[in-house]
Every structure is written in C-alpha cells, then in structure tokens.
C-alpha cells in the first residue's frame, strides 16, 4: 500500500478519545485518518491488556528514524510521530502542552463528558482552533520548556516599576491577572495578591493572542480556561491595544460580569502608561538581543532562569516569534537546545541533584554548561577549544553579570 501523504510529514500529532474517535490532527482530515487512529488506539489497548492493573501505559515506540510518543490522560489520548531529532522529553512536553491547550479550549468538563459517554464525538468542539494548536506546536518546539518559566522583555527596572505603579493605583477586586504585552512578548505581569499565575497559563493566553489576529484589531472580552488556575471553567480576558501600537493590555477576571469594571480599570492604566509607550516599544525591539551584551566574548549563547520569579532570559532567539540573530541560526539553536536538554536531564534525578548540579559536555564544535541550584538554572554554550578551568571561570563571570542584571531582565515583585 502506498504511504498516505500525511505520513511523509516530519512531525505528526494526533488527539483522539479513548474510543479512538479523532479529536484533532495536525495534518490531513480527521475523517481520512480515522482508520490510522484506530490502529494507534489498538496498539495502546493491546499494551493496556498486557499490563492490566498496573497504573501505566505505553509511553513510546522507537524505530531507526522515528519516535512514536504516547500521552494517555483520563479520557483523551495524544500521540506524536516525530522523524526529527527532538528528544523524548521535549516531545512529551509538547504533548502535555497540547493537552493543556485542549483543556483550555473546552475546560476539563470534556473529561467528565467522555468518561460518562465514551462514544462522544468531540471533534466538532475543536472547530476554529487549528491554527492555535499548530502555532503551539511550532513555538513549543523551540522553547526551553524544561525550565517551567517564561521570558519577559528586558527593560530598565525603573520603567517597569512605573507600569507596576499604574497597576497598583488602579486595582479592582475583579482583577485576577493583568498583562502589558504584544502578541509575542510580555512586558509586565500583574497577579492578584495571594494568587499565582502559572507560566503555562501565561503561555496559553499568549498562544490565543498570537493565533487569533482578530483579538488584536478590536477590544474584546474573551473566555479562556487557564487549567492551572482552574480547569473547571473559564476566566474572562479584557483585551485592548493601545492606539496605533502593537502594545496591548490584557486584564483577566474570574467574574464573568466584570467587563465594565475591568474596562474602567484598563482605561485608567492605559492613560497612565501612554507616556511610556516609546520606552515599551524600544524594549520590545530589543529582543532578540545579542549574546555579546554580557561582554564575555567566549560565549555563543546563554539561557538564565531564576526560580523566585519563574522567568528566564536568553540571548539571540525568541521562541515566540522565532526571530533569531545571525550569530545563532535556528538549526544551530535547536541543536544547542537539545544539548541543553541532555545536560540538564540528570539533574531531575534526586541522586544527581542535591541542591547543586554542574555539567559540562564537550562536543566537536561547542561546550555546553548546565548549572542548577535551588535558586537558578544557567545554560551556556562556549567554544570547544577552551580548557575546563577557563570554562568554569568564565561561567562564574557570566553568572555574576546575569545576577547583577536580574532587575532589568525580569519582572520583579
């Protein structure tokens, strides 16, 4: 039999119910693929049969040039077939993000529904979300997802605190989260006292903004489920863009009737930060920034994350826009990212991580440093010619510089 066209793609994704009814596929129509999905489900069932009673399911299959990765949630199954070089971990991260996005679209009531009615045909509910899911797959493929953090744009701390001040002086009880952002970058993030916003919920909001251009053209009041806040229902986002600019304001509430309050609140904030617009636009343009800003010429790339604020910053590439600087072309970046993943992997195992973890991997054309403590994570790429002692010394220097810049790199509390 001839290979169907869709199977020649490099990276395929499938979402289907536990009854093997298709919910979403990246390529091809769900209808054409329903027999293929049936076979995938049959493979899963067969393994479930072997291991009945054990709380586990098939995780992946591997061939010479291909990974088939499975993620089974209570009522929905996710499968990725990848012929690329992606690591297993990053494929899992993508599948988990896909699941989060499905829940963000339908709320977790879909799980309840499918458990009580396994034959339910959920495909129709996903109408209009194709581009958002595809965008999610493209962005997660190039993001350092192992860090569980997001990247804000760098901005002088004094400017950022002016924005913060305008939020703080116009707070409304209905305001849960607030953002000053463009469709691809975060300038400021507010969070109601006593609440936290999960970085995944943040990226879901940005996925929605980036993939629905209509949200950028008018003022809107849009429901979105943020599963880490609550997967039981929707919160509502008031989204508006400052006149003649790419800079927007998103105010979220868990009260569906809060539109008027949030709009008033938004109007007030907007008036106050209008004067900062040139500065905001300048800082948005500053990413991707060159690795040379650290002033240490041996470094080719770095990513730095602080746990205290669940944010990271990185040179030369922004996952949300896929913009990169010439000094690090995308393919090289992807390879470096895979090497970061590899160097970081062991630190997830308690035997290897006791509050402090350092790994230096030497490749033909670069050396990878991964540092992890309870406070921060640092990844960096250096020339392969350097002796180990120099790598250690330069890394310490870079770390010191990064720490001194934290106030500007990150949105501080």
């Amino acid at each position: 039999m001839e290979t169907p066209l869709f199977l020649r793609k490099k990276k395929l994704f499938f979402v289907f119910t536990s009854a093997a009814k298709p919910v979403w596929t990246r390529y091809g129509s769900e209808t054409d693929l329903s027999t293929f999905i049936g076979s995938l489900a049959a493979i899963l069932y067969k393994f479930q049969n072997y291991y009945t009673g054990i709380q586990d399911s098939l995780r992946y299959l591997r061939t010479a040039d291909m990974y088939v990765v499975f993620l089974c949630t209570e009522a929905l199954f996710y499968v990725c077939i990848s012929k690329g070089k992606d690591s297993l971990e990053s494929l899992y991260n993508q599948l988990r993000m896909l699941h989060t996005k499905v829940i963000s679209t339908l709320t977790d009531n879909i799980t309840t529904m499918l458990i009580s009615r396994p034959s339910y045909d959920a495909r129709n509910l996903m109408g209009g979300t194709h581009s958002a899911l595809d965008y999610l797959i493209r962005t997660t493929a190039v993001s350092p997802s192992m860090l569980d953090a997001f990247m804000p744009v760098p901005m002088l701390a004094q400017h950022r605190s002016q924005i913060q001040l305008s939020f703080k002086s116009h707070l409304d009880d209905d305001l849960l989260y607030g953002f000053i952002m463009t469709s691809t970058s975060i300038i400021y993030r507010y969070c109601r006292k006593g609440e936290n916003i999960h970085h995944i919920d943040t990226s879901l909001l940005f996925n929605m903004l980036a993939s629905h251009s209509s949200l950028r053209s008018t003022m809107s009041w849009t429901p979105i489920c943020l599963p880490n806040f609550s997967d039981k229902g929707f919160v509502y986002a008031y989204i508006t863009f400052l006149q003649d600019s790419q800079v927007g304001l998103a105010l979220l509430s868990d009260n569906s009737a809060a539109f008027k309050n949030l709009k008033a609140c938004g109007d007030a904030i907007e008036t106050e930060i209008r004067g900062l617009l040139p500065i905001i636009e300048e800082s948005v343009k500053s990413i991707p920034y060159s690795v040379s800003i650290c002033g240490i010429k041996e470094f080719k790339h770095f990513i730095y994350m602080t746990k205290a604020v669940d944010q990271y910053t990185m040179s030369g590439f922004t996952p949300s826009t896929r913009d990169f600087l010439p000094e690090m072309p995308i393919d090289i970046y992807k390879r470096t990212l895979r090497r970061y993943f590899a160097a970081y992997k062991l630190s997830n195992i308690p035997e290897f991580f006791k509050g402090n973890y350092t790994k230096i991997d030497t490749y033909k054309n670069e050396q990878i440093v991964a540092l992890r403590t309870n406070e921060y994570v640092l990844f960096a790429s250096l020339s392969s010619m350097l002796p180990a002692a120099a790598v250690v010394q330069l890394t310490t220097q870079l770390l010191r510089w990064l720490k001194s810049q934290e106030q500007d790199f990150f949105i501080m509390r």
Partner: protein
Amino acid sequence: MASGRKHLLKVIILGDSAVGKTSLMNQYVNKRFTQQYKATIGADFLTKEVMIDDKLVTLQIWDTAGQERFQSLGVAFYRGADCCVMVYDITSSKSFDNISSWKDEFLSQSNPKNPENFPFVVLGNKLDKESERKVPNARASQWCRDNGNMPFFETSAKDAINVDEAFQTIARNALSQVKEEEEYKPTINLNGGKKDKGQKKACC
C-alpha cells in the same frame, strides 16, 4: 452549529471466525470479494462515508478477529462503540448459537449507558450458499425479535446481497443514538474569587 456537525460513528463487527466479517466490510467499502480466507489478527479498520438523510456520516468500522475470542482486545476495544454488528454464517448452526454469547460479551465489556436500547444489528451471511443452509431464516428472526427487536438481514458478501442495505441501517441506528445525546456545555462560570464586594476599592 448543529446542522454543520460532522459525525463519526464507531461500528464494531463481531462473530465467530470465518463467518465473513472481513468479507462483508470489504464488500461494503471496497466492493471486492475474495474466496481466499485470511484470518483477521487483532483488528482491521476501514472507514466509509455515507449520507443519512441530509447528514454526512463517517463510519469507522472495527473488524475484529473471531479466532481470538478468548484473547480479545477487551474492554478498551469496545469502548465508545455506537453500534455493534453481529455476524453468523447461515450454513453453521454453531456460529448462530454463539451470537448470544457475543452479545453478552459485548455488553459486559463495553458497559453502555442503556444496554436495552443499544443498537445491535444481526447479519446472517453466505446467503448464496442456500443449499447448505443450517439456520432457518425464521429461527434467526425470532431470536432478533426476542432480543429487543434487533434489525436482521441475511446477506452475501460474495454476491453483494443486502450488504449496502445492512450498513445503511447500521449507520442510521448508530446515528439515532447520537441525536439523543445532550450537547456539550463547557461554560461554567467560576464564581468570582472574591467574597466582599462592599470593601471594593474605588477604581478610577
């Protein structure tokens, strides 16, 4: 939304080995028949689009292995089926006698919401071999009437007799179940996190 809905229906075909399950499915989907017998291992899948009234329906047909009776794919396999087709061979009494255990197994494994109303369809296959018939039409009809009035057809996968008609009924009955389902309502408002509106700070 309601009219534009696309439907995908999962149809499971059960029955003893060699009664002609795969042949019926192939005749229906590919309009082909072969004398050669190749036992199904595990399961085979085919899809077919049909019009039921004004609705385009995709049938996802799961053809199971009769020979694997006691090592079937089990619960998971039957999960969420919209219709179950049970096939016997009119020249084999045993294959007909087994229909009721196929039914019991399906119901106990798939555990549908309303077992009394679950759509089953019974097919007595190999009608072209009339001279070797062992199961009288009347006997099978009676059994179907006694078991909740299951639709019943005698078919021939070889000569394409009653095959389209049978699957049309299968699709229609499966679809009727779906129509009775409630719509999905995801909208549950989170009742605003805050308790005390009175203390509201003046905003603007």
